[in-house]
């Protein structure tokens, strides 16, 4: 391709300027703010903010509410992540079977929750979880399960949010898994069948290893997305009951935009970034060890 400096830079300038000014500079600014006591007074006069070193991070370390938010978010990511990936893989494998008719209709149906507005479905589910009038408890009654106060019981509120998140998200990863499954050569399974392998052996020895790159991608994007949990608790529980569903992003939002403790809030944001970064590294490492 012909080298043409000026044209290339003209094409890049609008997008890169926007990304630089409204993404990279804010990231750096947030990092600096996280080392200051930037508060409501500083909003109108930046000069009143002072550098306080690592004090925000030290304060976070001693903040029991932050630990609660951290614990809740990890609970959510560690349970909802693998669960939604397992459901996605299961659905993808069912839909990949040659016996299934009307595949496109099933695929489309399972995908609908993915595209719908999170706030709106969270509101729908809030009523679905209603202890007396909700449809979930009504169905569970057929199986002899007593009514559960899903969003009012500190032990059930997070499982309720997890259940909804799995319902909302499994269709997305399912699509990616279907693509991955279609790339596995059919003759691998045929050869295994001739060698007398059963379904479980084929799944463990062929499907899972062949899907490893897909699974890595799916787990990373799922993890990154789930660590940013916010709208569900904001709409369904406001972080309650007893802070049992308070998430990191929600705590960041409250500190930053309700109490205007922006220095503290920026520190929370960076801890979140750090966790996501480490999480991604671990997944890459884990994948490497499994492949070796």
């Amino acid at each position, binding site marked *: 391709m012909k080298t043409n400096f000026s044209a290339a830079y003209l094409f890049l300038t609008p997008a890169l300027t926007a990304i630089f000014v409204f993404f990279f500079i804010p990231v750096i600014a*947030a990092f600096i703010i996280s080392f200051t006591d930037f508060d409501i007074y500083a909003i109108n006069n930046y000069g009143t903010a002072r550098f306080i070193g690592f004090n925000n991070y030290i304060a976070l370390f001693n903040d029991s509410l932050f630990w609660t938010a951290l614990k809740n978010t990890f609970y959510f990511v560690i349970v909802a992540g693998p669960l939604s990936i397992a459901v996605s893989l299961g659905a993808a494998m069912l839909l990949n079977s040659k016996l299934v008719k009307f595949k496109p209709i099933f695929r489309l149906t399972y995908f609908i929750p993915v595209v*719908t507005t999170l706030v709106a479905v969270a509101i729908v589910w809030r009523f679905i979880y209603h202890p007396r009038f909700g449809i979930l408890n009504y169905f569970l009654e057929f199986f002899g399960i007593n009514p559960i106060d899903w969003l009012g019981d500190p032990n059930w509120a997070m499982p309720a949010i997890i259940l909804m998140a799995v319902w909302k998200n499994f269709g997305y990863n399912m699509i990616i898994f279907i693509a991955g499954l279609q790339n596995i050569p059919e003759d691998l399974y045929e050869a295994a069948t001739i060698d007398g392998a059963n379904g479980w052996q084929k799944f463990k020895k062929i499907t899972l290893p062949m899907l490893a790159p897909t699974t890595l991608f799916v787990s990373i994007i799922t993890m990154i997305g789930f660590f940013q949990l916010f709208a569900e608790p904001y709409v369904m529980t406001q972080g309650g009951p007893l802070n049992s569903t308070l998430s990191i992003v929600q705590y960041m939002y409250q500190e930053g935009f309700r109490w205007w403790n922006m220095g503290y809030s920026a520190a929370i*944001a960076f801890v979140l970034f750090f966790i996501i970064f480490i999480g*991604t590294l671990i997944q890459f490492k884990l994948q490497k060890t499994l492949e070796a």
Partner: protein
Amino acid sequence: MFSKKFILHFILIITGIITLAPFIWMLSASFMYDGHANVYPPRFFPDEFTLTQYTILFERLDVGRNFFNSLFLSATVTFVSLFFNSMAGYAFAKYRFKGKNQLFNLLLSSMIIPAQVTMLPLFLMLKSVGLINTYMAIIIPGMANIFGIFLIRQYVLSIPDSLIESARIDGASDFRIYRSIILPLAMPILVTLAIFTFMGTWNDFLWPLIALIDDSMYTLPVALANLMGEHSKDPELMMAGSVITILPVIVVFLALQKYYIKGIMMGSIKG
């Protein structure tokens, strides 16, 4: 005994019912009078059909205004970002310039930074120029995005260089080549990205919640969450609000689902 085929379809159909049940209940409750969804056992069809909840939303709560905000902002962000991203994606795919790979890798690796990190300074920046609580507060951060540039670059890479070369020999300018060759050929990916951006902006919650202050400026998700505060005991009204918020994205998705699904697959192929 049941055949394997029967069991397979049985599981798929049950999963389908579980997937759709919340939407069916939402739709049906939205057509009920006050209090008719707060009953035991729950109703899956309205006992008496009414549009009263929708009338309340549009006439008394002025949700039409929020609907317009969502529509206008999603369309504008989609249009602007498509323009910016496609130019940048084209440059990354088909031009050679100093530092290209480093720049591209820097962009790709920064995709791991969660957007929440930028929100505090972004708020302060926009506030200092008086743009908080305006449409610009939503449009400006959405003007370009790395994922969009990446997606377009991947696609444009597959357009043969010879097409561009021969146009250049015919005397076409760089911008002309972009407009008359690249854009038409990249149409499938542009449609895909348009759907992603439109839905992403329509469904976005945290940033609009931060950047928009007045009821009249709210997008639908923010208006809906706000409404929930006062109407948490009115499922019929809230379900009508949810229907209004969800319906447009479902319609867009059903109409253009092929492009959407293709985009997910493309995004999942690592570059």
